[in-house]
């Protein structure tokens, strides 16, 4: 948590900037093959850079392959935590990340999220940098010092 180890490496930085700019602009988190094509580099090099970013907790990889599950706060696959902003749709892996997408974009946005227990949808709205509508209660099951023991469950 003390530094971005990726920051000292040119390609890793380039990959980080591409992934996050694409996620913000399109709502889609690019995967290694797309990144390789965009940056005109071999997939193997991109794969190493992605792993380095994951080791630095900048990204989260899907289990058992080199694909990106989340470039936090942006989730690469649809989830229950949906964000609508600027006519685009984004997904977070949790309510913190869904609100984080609103913060990262710096745009007005609407978040819809299900109750973790009953599944009923709730709606939160960010306007002008403030949360102007909120529903429900946010619950953190895992103490802060153990968040990264299993970030998927956290």
């Amino acid at each position: 948590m003390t530094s971005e180890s990726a920051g000292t490496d040119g390609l890793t930085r380039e990959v980080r900037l591409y992934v996050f700019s694409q996620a913000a602009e399109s709502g889609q988190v690019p995967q290694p093959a797309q990144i390789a094509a965009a940056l005109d580099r071999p997939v193997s090099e991109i794969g190493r850079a992605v792993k380095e970013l994951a080791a630095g907790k900048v990204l989260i990889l899907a289990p058992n392959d080199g694909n990106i599950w989340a470039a936090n706060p942006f989730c690469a696959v649809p989830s229950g935590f949906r964000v609508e902003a600027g006519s685009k749709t984004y997904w977070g892996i949790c309510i913190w990340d869904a609100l984080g997408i609103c913060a990262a974009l710096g745009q007005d946005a609407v978040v819809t999220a299900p109750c973790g227990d009953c599944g009923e949808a709730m709606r939160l709205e960010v306007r002008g940098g403030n949360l102007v509508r909120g529903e429900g209660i946010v619950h953190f099951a895992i103490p802060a010092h153990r968040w990264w023991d299993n970030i998927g469950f956290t």
Partner: protein
Amino acid sequence: MLLFRSEEHIDRWSRARDLPRGATLTPDQCWRLAHGWYKDKIKPDWRRHTLEETEALLAEVDLTGRFWNLRDH
């Protein structure tokens, strides 16, 4: 981090998984936490927060005590 309709729903979810209850935040606290954590994430000069910066952010959002302690227990 999940969103629940009420305390009762948190209790039911926790009991069903045989988990102790964790900590709760208001949506506004979660927004302020998310804003502090992610507002720079897509900027080219983004860097990870230091431990001290993260502790300061948690304190700003009134998240204090053992549950929010980031150092070894």
